[in-house]
């Protein structure tokens, strides 16, 4: 067997009759790594390198001499952990984290609850028009967040909203959903509208994977549809509920498109409403890429920690039967 390998030195060594060690090297190292190379190269270029560059930037800062005008008056110097201290002690960052936690506390239970309810309803034997309902609930997920935020923004603005027009006609005083007290709910609503469908499909798919003998046995034992849903279906699909919860938590921590799109429409959202908006503002509005880098690292670490903690807490319950 003769093969051409990319490096001529190795090709010579790989000719028939070469010592076993060389052949071993080829089989154990060269072949697998060559096959892995495309993946590794792309990963290094587009994942590892940017992450390392972010880490490098996060320990740098800008140093200005004099007026900061002209050549050489602004240099990049090592800052140690200064940016991290600033990020963690920034009251705006703390406030944005609290806002996002409140947002998640409202959104996630509602979204997963509705998704589970719809999945169970679609899966129940008595449901009609399943395919249509499934598509109708899933469709908003296909609308990009910026577009859906614009659509909802138009519906929220009292001056152009048909909802406000109808309320006015009916003689009702409808409060503006873009007021500071309600704007969190307004954003939750957009995320809910877009997110329920995706989570429902994930749960519904795992419901479909449940063997039907289990249901037949339950029915023979006189189990009602509701009992079956609560005692059989929910426990069986618990792993996929946990997975959707994890995805939702991560998505919540990274909320950006909805508040950014709604912001110019009203006075109630600041440019540092969510942690990622703060990062974006520092990097591209304030030209302070270093603070933005350190805050990004903090957010990434926190996301990782929260996901890990969440999995540790629920793992026993959800995946207990698998071990």
């Amino acid at each position, binding site marked *: 067997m003769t*093969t051409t390998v*990319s490096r001529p030195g190795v090709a010579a060594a790989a000719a028939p009759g070469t010592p076993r060690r060389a052949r071993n090297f080829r089989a154990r190292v060269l072949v697998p790594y060559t096959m892995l*190379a495309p993946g590794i190269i792309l990963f290094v270029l587009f994942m590892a390198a940017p992450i390392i560059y972010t880490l490098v930037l996060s320990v740098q800062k800008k140093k200005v001499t004099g007026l*900061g005008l*002209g050549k050489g008056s602004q240099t990049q110097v090592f800052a140690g952990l200064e940016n991290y201290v600033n990020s963690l002690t920034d009251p705006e960052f703390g406030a944005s984290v609290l806002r996002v936690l409140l947002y998640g506390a409202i959104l996630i239970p509602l979204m997963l609850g509705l998704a589970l309810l719809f999945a169970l309803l679609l899966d129940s034997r008595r449901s009609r028009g399943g395919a249509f309902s499934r598509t109708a609930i899933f469709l908003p997920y296909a609308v990009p967040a910026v577009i859906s935020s614009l659509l909802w*923004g138009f519906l929220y603005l009292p001056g152009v909203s048909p909802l406000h027009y109808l309320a006015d006609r009916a003689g009702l005083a409808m409060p503006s959903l873009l007021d500071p007290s309600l704007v969190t709910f307004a954003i939750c609503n957009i995320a809910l509208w877009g997110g329920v469908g995706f989570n429902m499909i994930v749960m519904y798919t795992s419901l479909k994977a449940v063997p039907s003998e289990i249901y037949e046995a339950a029915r023979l034992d006189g189990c009602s549809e509701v009992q079956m849903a609560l005692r059989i279906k929910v426990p069986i699909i618990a792993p996929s509920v946990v997975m959707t919860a994890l995805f939702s938590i991560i998505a919540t921590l990274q909320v950006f498109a909805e508040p950014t799109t709604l912001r110019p429409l009203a006075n109630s959202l600041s440019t540092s409403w969510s942690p990622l908006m703060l990062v974006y503002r520092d990097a591209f509005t*304030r030209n302070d890429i270093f603070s933005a880098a350190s805050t990004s690292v903090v957010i990434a670490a926190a996301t990782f920690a929260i996901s890990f903690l969440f999995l540790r807490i629920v793992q026993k319950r959800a995946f207990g039967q698998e071990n």
Partner: protein
Amino acid sequence: MRKSFRRAAAAAVAAAALLTAGCSSGTVSDPAAANANQKVELTYWAWAPNLEKVVDIWNKANPNIHVTVNKQDGGDPAVTKLLTAIKAGSGAPDLIQAEYQKIPTLVAANALADLSATPAKETKGDFAAGVWNSVTLGGDALYAIPQDTGPMVFYYRADIFEKLGLAVPTTWDEYAADAKAIHKADPTAYLGTFSSNDAGWFTGMAQQAGASWWGIDGDAWSVKVDQEPTQKVAGYWGTLVQDGVIDNKPMYTPEWNTALNTGKQVGWLSAAWAPGVLAGNAGATAGKWKVAPMPQWDASKPSTGNWGGSSTAVTTQSKHLDAAAKFATWLNTDPAAVAALVNVAGIYPADTAGAAASLTKAPAFFSNQPDFYKVIGEAAKGVGSFTYGPNVNVAFNAYNDQFAKAAQSKQKSAFLSAVTAMQDITVGDLKKSGFTVK
């Protein structure tokens, strides 16, 4: 089987290598020095509409200095791209369209060449003092040649003013009285709105009141936001919003467009470029609007501020400083070029003589007011001096956040504390970067 696997892997590696090679290749500028008889190629990043047609006039008349316009998305993306190219050491154009408030940031990054040693310096007399100050930063250097400006004026619905028997306000006191009368006649109508989205709009009004938010003091910067002129403007608007006679919602929203169309927004304090916006956002009301000078703080000393405007700058990576400066001077001061800028690119030129000569016919939206550009031209003479600092972006962002809170609270005291917060955030950012602040 194995063979084809390997070949595929090798192909993928080669593709990845090509990808990275593609990333690192950049444009290499011509290193040859400008020679009178040698042909010079200049690139120009700009976003003004149809600017390339104006540049064609130059290219026909000057075969030795050929300018290519490279269209940009707008002021912010162009600046971000330029800063990246400067940091990378190559890839910057010879010329760039730079908004006035971006000049200090670009100078701080050493992106703009000093033109004070070129004949461009002689154009000082062609521009209003306030505009010239924006391109010199109040020092001896010259960082750009002014192109267009946005002197602020007052646009109003003449039909509604007439119906209510109101006089056009000449002072801010009269503006407040008119605002009250309009809101009283129709509780859903307002003479205007206080917009927390538009920092440039508020800056223009502070400039009118005599503010200049930054200053150079030897080797130190000074920040003068939280001082009498800006406090006066913020307090004035805070009172109107608190009394409920002026709306508190941002401009440029669907709601605001609707209000302009339905006559619920009866006036707009805006700049010379407003006809284009009004024609686009409130087309149904063409012929019903009129323009008047800004309401004044002191009617005996009429003044106004700028909202928007940009200049032509030469970058530090340009190998042809003299040729680029020559083109920038021609573009912004030559009568034929300025006339083309007005007619083809639709801008309001900074060149005062050129503006007077080329702006004679009112825009179609204001066909009911033949002396439209006479009013604007008079206003442009009263643009006060204003110095921008190296962190305008931070101050403008602070305006957005702080005045959003103030407008929402509808309290005069909140408007005043927003000014203080703007000052603190701007100074804090300068100090954090290591600037000396006085």
